[in-house]
């Protein structure tokens, strides 16, 4: 019985972190239990609310589009206020390191595939790349980086009809690198402005990069780089490049390793810590004890030994299929990994997917169904447990990848789950 809190949140991604902070705001003692590094660390770092809804045209105002969503959509269940509260909480956490809070409208941010993504919030480092801006753009790529080709990116952007001229140039990365660690190593070099050999001279990595890119700037007024301009000191790196190149510099979100995702995960961890939330990281929750419809404790596997963690309220924020909050198998069907909450799905596995890769994929909608206080529901529509709430990717009812709503769903459901959990604890205390 030694380990006890008011609220335990399971899962340390966007939803879990925000739910924990929200619960801590109510005055509850909160512990965040996380296992492996969150999928947030390889996500783009963009915070999208609703980008598409069944059509190829991006949504301009996600709030105006909320009413068109089906009843089972997490937004419909949580309500517009929750979506706005979630964004408010996010804005408070990240401060001026993110842009987009001045408007309800989506921003269009170029991605490394050469598309533009409709998103509600974007890192300040990506701001100068916004596609509604008509200043001419140069996109810098690096030889040997297979995930990113600047010429192709520029062509794709032009083909998508952006209102500006865009050129792409492939430069070489100052210094020598192994394939697998190229990105992390170069980011670190820029971060601490470590010396590299460039054109026969030894100089700071930032200076070498400036010298490499400068001849190609031409008429461009803004220059985009893959998003690895430093880690801890990314503002400094960007400022140095902007000053010396005489242009605005921005980062283009890319696939893993994704510094915007890593930086956001780090920011969230700091915010969680500052909110007074305790953290147990590196240990999975493998089971639970329940009594009379209430969870008494969750069982944390601490290197092969099972330790009970007690609380009054629990929040499940373990993610979806990729985050492994949801599992599937031939025999078991589709399951929620810890509490075995009900997940509606067809019995026949061949009905889980559509044969068109980009079709409306049933599996993308898999997840627990929740009531308006985020409690997962059984097949009979009653709460699985009185004191369990869900947040983020583990909740089903929408293809958040296709509609670009993953972060927004995480934020909206997290604020409701976290706040309700905290409030319930306060109620118990009053009644006792």
């Amino acid at each position, binding site marked *: 019985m*030694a*380990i006890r809190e008011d609220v335990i949140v399971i899962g340390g991604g966007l939803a879990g972190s925000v739910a924990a902070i929200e619960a801590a705001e109510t005055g509850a003692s909160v512990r965040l239990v996380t296992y*492996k*590094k*969150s*999928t947030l*660390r*390889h996500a783009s770092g963009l915070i999208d609310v609703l980008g598409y809804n069944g059509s190829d045209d991006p949504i301009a105002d996600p709030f105006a589009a909320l009413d068109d969503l089906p009843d089972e959509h997490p937004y419909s269940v949580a309500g517009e206020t929750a979506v706005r509260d979630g964004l408010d909480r996010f804005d408070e956490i990240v401060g001026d390191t993110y842009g987009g809070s001045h408007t309800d409208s989506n921003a269009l941010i170029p991605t490394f595939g050469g598309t533009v993504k409709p998103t509600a919030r974007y890192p300040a480092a990506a701001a100068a790349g916004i596609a509604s801006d008509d200043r001419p753009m140069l996109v810098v790529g690096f030889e040997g980086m297979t995930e990113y080709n600047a010429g192709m990116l520029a062509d794709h952007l032009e083909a998508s009809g952006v209102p500006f001229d865009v050129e792409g140039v492939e430069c070489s990365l100052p*210094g*020598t*690198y*192994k*394939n*697998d*660690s190229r990105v*992390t*190593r170069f980011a*670190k070099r820029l971060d*601490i402005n470590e010396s590299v050999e460039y054109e026969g001279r030894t100089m700071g990595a930032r200076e070498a990069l400036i010298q490499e890119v400068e001849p190609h700037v031409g008429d461009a007024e803004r220059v985009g780089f893959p998003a690895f301009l430093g880690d*801890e000191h990314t503002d400094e790196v960007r400022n140095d490049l902007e000053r010396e190149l005489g242009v605005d510099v921005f980062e283009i979100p890319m696939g*893993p*390793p994704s510094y915007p995702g*890593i930086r956001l995960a*780090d920011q969230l*961890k700091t915010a969680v*810590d500052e909110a007074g939330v*305790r*953290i*147990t*990281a*590196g*240990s999975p929750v493998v089971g639970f004890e329940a009594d009379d419809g209430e969870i008494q404790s969750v069982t*944390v596997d*601490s*290197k*092969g*030994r099972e*330790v009970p963690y007690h609380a009054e309220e629990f929040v499940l924020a373990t993610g979806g299929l990729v*985050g*492994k909050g949801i599992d599937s198998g031939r025999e078991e069907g589709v399951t929620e990994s810890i509490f075995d909450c009900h997940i509606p799905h067809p019995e026949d596995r061949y009905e889980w997917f559509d044969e068109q890769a980009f079709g409306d994929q049933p599996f993308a909608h898999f997840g627990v169904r929740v009531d308006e206080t985020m409690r997962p529901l059984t097949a009979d529509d009653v709460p699985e447990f009185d004191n369990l709430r869900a947040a983020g990717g583990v909740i089903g009812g929408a293809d958040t990848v296709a509609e670009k709503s993953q972060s927004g769903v995480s934020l909206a459901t997290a604020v409701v789950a976290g706040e309700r959990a905290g409030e319930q604890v306060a109620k118990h205390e009053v009644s006792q």
Partner: protein
Amino acid sequence: MSDAEQASDFDPTTTVDEFEPVDVFPSSEDMDLRPGADNCYKCTSCDTSCPVAEVDESFPGPKFQGPEQWRLKRGEDVDIDDSILSCSNCMRCDDACPSSVPLSQMHNTARGEYVEEHMDKLSREYLRNRMLSNYRTLASIGSKVPRLANFVMGLGITSVLGEKIMGIPSERDVPEFATETFRQWFKKRGGSKVTNPDKQVAYFHGCYSNYNTVEVGKAMVRVFEEFGYEVLVPKQQCSGTPMFANGMLKDARREAEVNVRELGKAIDNGADVIASCTSCSMALRQEYPELFDIEGIEDLSEHTYEAMEFLRIHEDLEGTIRESEVDPQAFAYHAPCHARNQGLDRQAVELFRELDGAQIEDVGDSCSGISGTYGWKSEKYETSMKIGAEMFDHMEHAEGDVGMTECPTCAMQMNHGTGYEIRHPLELLEEAVAN
């Protein structure tokens, strides 16, 4: 269930006397690591968590060292890449991997194979690594004449010779031996002051608390006695941590056999095993069952705890700390990588925040860079200090000017980079509860 939790059939320790690569590794296909390799979906979480890859561009990172190299090895005529020796065995990749790929197990087995098959047993590097791995042997000789040993090791000429002959960086100060070992002290005081057949713990002090920082061991004993535990100090060898990191798996197995047997006896009598060094507890809990198949090894793994963790689970440690008080002092706390891997990285900070008089600040997620013996090699010294730079910087910005950590080699690095005195959480806990 992680694949890492299953012992592989791979056993590099069978033939010892006459080295025959073919016999030692009858078939590397025996390494049952395939499911682990297949689980990797190349998300790069491990690579972005690797402190070595971040500062050393010749190191390809854990994804290559683990699943990719394992797969390459299936082909004929592919040898283990020598960059495996640049892995510091911090095990952060284990903690990072969302698919539970047993990365450190893959690295440990690959390193063991590389050292056995490709390293010249008469080379300076091999001999130096063997010596560093067997610190316990060295320390047990040195501590017989601690004052002389400290004097000799402190001489400038010793340090120059160390660099030239052995490849030990002259920048580092060799740790001093205590004039009385922990075991000598424990014996002299007549063993545990508490007798309690129902509450017994067997203390795995490891080498460093025995020969060097005996005050940590003493603190452990006094704190546990305060909570009513009888402390046993069974016969023990090195945990094996430095041996895994240097690919000396035969040495590690030899030590493990003794530890499993001796600590196993205590467990059979109802005791749990407590370690004050988080790398020792890590070895007993994770690396033992991953690398060796010894009777009782699972039992030992399941019964081993880090000291404060044990009290947190079995006693109301937080309540006790809340009611305690110490003289005003502020600490810059660094969580060792191996504590992180046991889910203990926030433990000291969270507990001591509740302690009147103590101020404690976490100096962040970075690795200290020393990784046991890693930073004790001339060719790795620069990498080690580059990795440590972030921690030094954060320590200097923290309010406290005394460092705190559970790991003895992290403590050396913290002291080396900042000049701060470094204490172990058990020492502060002793001050709080055992007076």
